[in-house]
């Protein structure tokens, strides 16, 4: 018999429905990844016991680890399904939805909160308008390179899943949005809102919730310097707090 890939997938029809496990065996071919397996199931929605089922529901788009859509928990670790190569994974490959976000169906979750957090930190550069106002400010290439590392965050949610402080009890904004706050605060024009951003992350659910567990930076697929960013912001907020305090 030709080689197959075995999968165990946690399925759930909706947030209030019970969850169940289904097992699958799909044909193996070179360079396949977890999404290719799920696509095989779409074409032949039959479980490992030969029983008909429905295709698994999940999110994906780019298939090259840049859109952030396909994050799920694979063999216990949050990561992108498109870049999870089957040949590197022990089998059965166990797939579960992210646990820190509301479930929609099967492996699909609702990560709206991450985009809302970007609103909270005023994650934008307040330009005057989109008409032609001539060149922007100069920027040293070295500074640019640090900014670029922060700007590659694809809101995938891996860091939120890994962070012990992101949970139902705290309303911690999480590492991704914090790093974005720094990104805009070091941008030549974006920094004009720096103090408002610091205010936003100093309150309830803000930067002080971070217990410096360092989990986030280890799982980030884009190597965003999360803990460096958080440390820098910690300094900035302290300084900002003291300055305000002295000016009272």
């Amino acid at each position: 018999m030709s080689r197959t890939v075995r999968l165990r997938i946690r399925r759930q029809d909706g947030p209030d429905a019970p969850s169940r496990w289904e097992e699958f065996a799909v044909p193996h071919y070179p360079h396949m990844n977890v999404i290719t397996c799920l696509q095989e199931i779409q074409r032949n929605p039959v479980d490992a016991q030969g029983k008909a089922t429905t295709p698994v529901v999940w999110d994906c788009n780019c298939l090259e680890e840049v859109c952030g859509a396909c994050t799920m928990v694979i063999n216990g670790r949050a990561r992108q399904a498109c870049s999870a190569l089957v040949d590197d994974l022990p089998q059965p490959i166990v797939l579960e939805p992210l646990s820190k976000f509301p479930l929609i169906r099967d492996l699909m979750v609702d990560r709206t909160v991450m985009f809302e957090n970007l609103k909270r930190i005023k994650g934008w550069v307040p330009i005057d308008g989109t008409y032609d106002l001539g060149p922007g400010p100069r920027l040293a290439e070295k500074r640019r390179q640090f900014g670029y590392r922060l700007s590659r965050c694809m809101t995938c949610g891996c860091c939120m899943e890994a962070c012990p402080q992101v949970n139902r009890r705290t309303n911690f904004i999480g590492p991704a949005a914090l790093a974005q706050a720094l990104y805009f605060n070091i941008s030549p024009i974006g920094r004009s809102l720096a103090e408002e951003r610091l205010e936003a992350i100093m309150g309830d659910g803000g930067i002080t919730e971070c217990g410096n567990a360092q989990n986030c930076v280890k799982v980030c697929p884009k190597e965003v310097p999360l803990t460096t960013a958080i440390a820098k912001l910690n300094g900035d907020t302290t300084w900002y707090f003291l300055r305000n305090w002295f000016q009272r």
Partner: protein
Amino acid sequence: MQRQNVIVVGGGLAGLMAAVRIAEQNFHVDLFSLVPVRRSHSVCAQGGINAAVNTKGEGDSPWEHFDDTIYGGDFLANQTPVKRMCEAAPGIIYLFDRMGVMFNRTDEGLLDFRRFGGTKYHRTAFAGATTGQQLLYALDEQVRRYEAAGRVTKFEGWEFLSAIADDAGVCRGVVAADLVSGEVRAFPGRAVILATGGLGMIFGKSTNSVINTGAAAGSVYTQGARFANGEFIQVHPTAIPGPDKLRLMSESARGEGGRVWVPRNGERWYFLEEMYPAYGNLVPRDIASRAIFDVCVNQGLGVDGKNQVYLDLTHIPADELEVKLGGILEIYRKFMGDDPAKVPMKVFPAVHYSMGGLWVDYDQMTAIPGLFAAGECEYQYHGANRLGANSLLSCIYGGQVAGQKAMEWALDKAPDTDPTRHGELEATRQREFLDRIRSMDGDENPYVLHRELGEVMTENVTVVRHNDRLDATLERIAEFKERWTNLRPPDNGARANQSLHFARQLYYMLELAHVITLGARLRDESRGAHYKPEFPDRDDERFLKTTLAAYTADGPRIDYEDVDIQYIPPRPRKYDVDKKETMG
């Protein structure tokens, strides 16, 4: 009084640019997207965006950019909008710089530019090798700013199904479906902009994202919008073959000095450099793809006897590669397990971009009044072949024009009659269509049918086209359409039913496959990406014309329209010699 709003469908570069343009003028935008807009396909763009800023003392100018674009597109693009785009390009780069995009810099802290295909100038601004992501995020952030201010309402996870037309045939809004709950609803709008991106999924595997089915454009085509130049499909020369996707290795790899070769008689044969001494590895994509095809398929010289060639960066210092091309090196490492800084990459051509799309006038309005289009879903800027790094530009520029013109339409021309009744009729029609699919009881799986369509299209309607095979493909498409009526969608759940919506999208993919193939069959010449060995030359007499497809129940009706060539008279297109030598 009806609410003052414009509906924008699509949150890639084109849609978001249009939305910002409208919102900054205090007008309301309702923004629809299949995915959270920050995950739109534009995020994939790697290499960069063109603008003749001429910071390298090379004497570049918007006119040179214009000429390269028209010449690269084999004179099929209307020249007026292309000229305007090239003139606007420097201002667009500055705008994104001001929005905070982390473009690479020179030692002096100025914007850096690199080379791309089909030009001799350093004209391409870039942010590492993830330029599309950086540009998209900048616009996403501006839209979020207006969302927070209450001027943009987002409908993410909603699928546009069709346009609402009133008795006079004017577009009055859209019907959309919530992809989680399944709810289908009519949304009135004073004007509508479609910015729904490309259609690579019609070819099964491509460099595109999985949501790029072209279904939205296909749907309005069946409602009376025209589809122009459908047969012009760009096949990118360098992608990594894969079982699920053909992952692009950007032209910027060659722009930074990458070389293409195959082993021949124990030596390295740099065939592009030999065949095209004037442009070398940076010939336009149609030319490079045909050369690679010829070397692998006809001459049997592919690496390891397979359809693949080397794309070699190993002679470039590793730290320089990291700063300028890091994003694509990472893709190659993660998906192939090899390091391109150490071993040459193995690549082959892949379907990449549709030059064709919805026909629009110079105000970006489609053949349906009140319905505008911008971005890859329309046809305006690239003629028979797109130059690298011109798409991000055309998306942004087209988005600006569409935003402005749609707003003007909404203020001055949109009818004031109540569109509610037409909206309800259209919503009912769409609910019935979905119900019809849901209750289908045949034996075809939509995903299997889609794979077959992709294989047939890739085999017959890409780099080399023959009339007999195109005829056979038209027959296959008719057969696929028949089989579509015999589907059995594999899921009948109500919530987040992805296969139901995919089956619906497949219907429109088949319609557009028909348009693409028939257009190719009828165009008996070779021009840009459209190449027929039986008709190897460009035939300006018969075919210096835009192809226009109109929907009928029996298949597309094809007409032709003259091309605007008022600035640059057509001349032969040759990349073995310098451009000046072709100017006579």
